[in-house]
């Protein structure tokens, strides 16, 4: 039952995203300066939002794990970070494609892109180190530590996007300042779509992590018998 709900959530997210795509192609006029490619925004920015939201949840559950030593928090942390890292990868790749179209380059080492890549690498480190720790309590404790350390970059990225006078080609957020009209609907729908997908993926991964813990305890039981 719970599984079916999760799958339904994911499929709903996919449907909403397809609806959004349809809306973009049929209703949206080409953006003034960037042509239709400007609408990469609707997948690029929400992906970053999803990553940040998931990383923030992971931060909270990591701290909660260190305080309360309840493994549920550890499971939620790893699920959030894994899905969040995927969303940041989507952000980086769509941003790179957008950049190739707009600025002619796939990458540049300005503050915004560098800090975002750094965020991706930090959490990738989390995902790489975690399987290498054999014992469960150690693994959870170390992961919590790494997740907390890595979170320092998240506010840094948000500041980097908003700081004026930073030599960069990455545009400042225009949505918030109301610079463009007509983007509200696809933008919000895009966020909702990715939120649904993020939730579904996170729940699936959480279930898998709980199953893994059950496997660990069964192995111990088998060993004891």
């Amino acid at each position, binding site marked *: 039952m719970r599984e079916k709900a999760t799958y339904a959530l994911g499929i709903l997210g996919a449907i909403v995203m397809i609806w959004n795509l349809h809306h973009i192609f049929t209703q949206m006029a080409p953006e003034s300066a960037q042509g239709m490619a400007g609408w990469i925004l609707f997948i690029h920015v929400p992906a970053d939002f999803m990553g940040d939201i998931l990383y923030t949840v992971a931060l909270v559950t990591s701290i909660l794990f*260190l305080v309360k030593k309840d493994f549920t928090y550890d499971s939620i942390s790893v699920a959030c970070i894994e899905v969040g890292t995927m969303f940041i990868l989507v952000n980086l790749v769509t941003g790179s494609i957008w950049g190739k179209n707009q600025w002619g380059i796939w990458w540049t080492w300005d503050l915004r892109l*560098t800090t975002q890549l*750094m965020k991706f*690498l*930090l959490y*990738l*480190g989390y995902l*790489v*180190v975690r399987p*290498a*720790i*054999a*014992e469960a*309590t*150690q693994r959870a*404790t*170390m992961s*919590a*530590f*790494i997740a*907390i*350390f*890595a979170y*320092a970059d998240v506010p*840094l990225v948000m500041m980097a996007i908003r700081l004026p006078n930073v030599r960069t080609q990455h545009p400042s957020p225009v949505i918030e300042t109301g610079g463009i009209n007509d983007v509200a609907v696809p933008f919000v729908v895009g966020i909702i779509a990715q939120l649904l997908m993020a939730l579904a993926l996170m729940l699936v991964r959480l279930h898998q992590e709980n199953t893994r813990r059950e496997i660990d305890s069964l192995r111990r039981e088998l060993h004891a018998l």
Partner: protein
Amino acid sequence: MKSGLATALTIARKDLRTELRTKESINAAASFALVILVIFSFAFNLERDEFYAISGGLLWLVYSFAGALIVNRAFSRELPNDCLDVLIASPAPGWAIFLGKAVAAFLLLLLVEAISLPVFGLFYNIRWTESLGWLVLIILLATWGMTIVGSAFSAVIVNVRLRELMLPVLLYPILIPLLIAAMGGTTALFQGEPLTGENFGYIRQLIGFDAVYTALALYMIEFILVF
């Protein structure tokens, strides 16, 4: 608090004495730094003036590679004979153990850097004796940042398989802001600009990084060492 600092000092002295007797990691790190310095000379074919633009970056690449070696040993040195368990079981506060090891690693890394710097100046014809004061300040600040974060992660992965590979994977992304500031500041110094005015931002960034991560590491190390 006082006894904690005294404990930290004792542990720092122990680590330093152990290392200076065998000189294992100093030799390894210094040799590695020298080899890298040689290999980098083949990487670029630059005129003397162009080379100054990458000089700072090159120096800190070498220092960070050597640093990873030194810092890795900080906690892994305690693994044989269950010394780490004994340390944790002792009444010494976790932060004191950590601080002592970080200080020892800091001094050892400074030693390796002091050895590599003249060689770097020699191989690449960099005049580093001018504005020596600023250079020493950058080296001290950035090395402290590297060792405090490196020692923290060394404690985290002490029981992980493939420890030597995991430490760079974890450490270098976190060090990116520190390395950017250190490399930028050092390049500016080698190009003859003093670190005043706009260039002082590099020092500010280093101090900020050190302050934040020292506080974070000292606060969190209790959870890591006593799991």
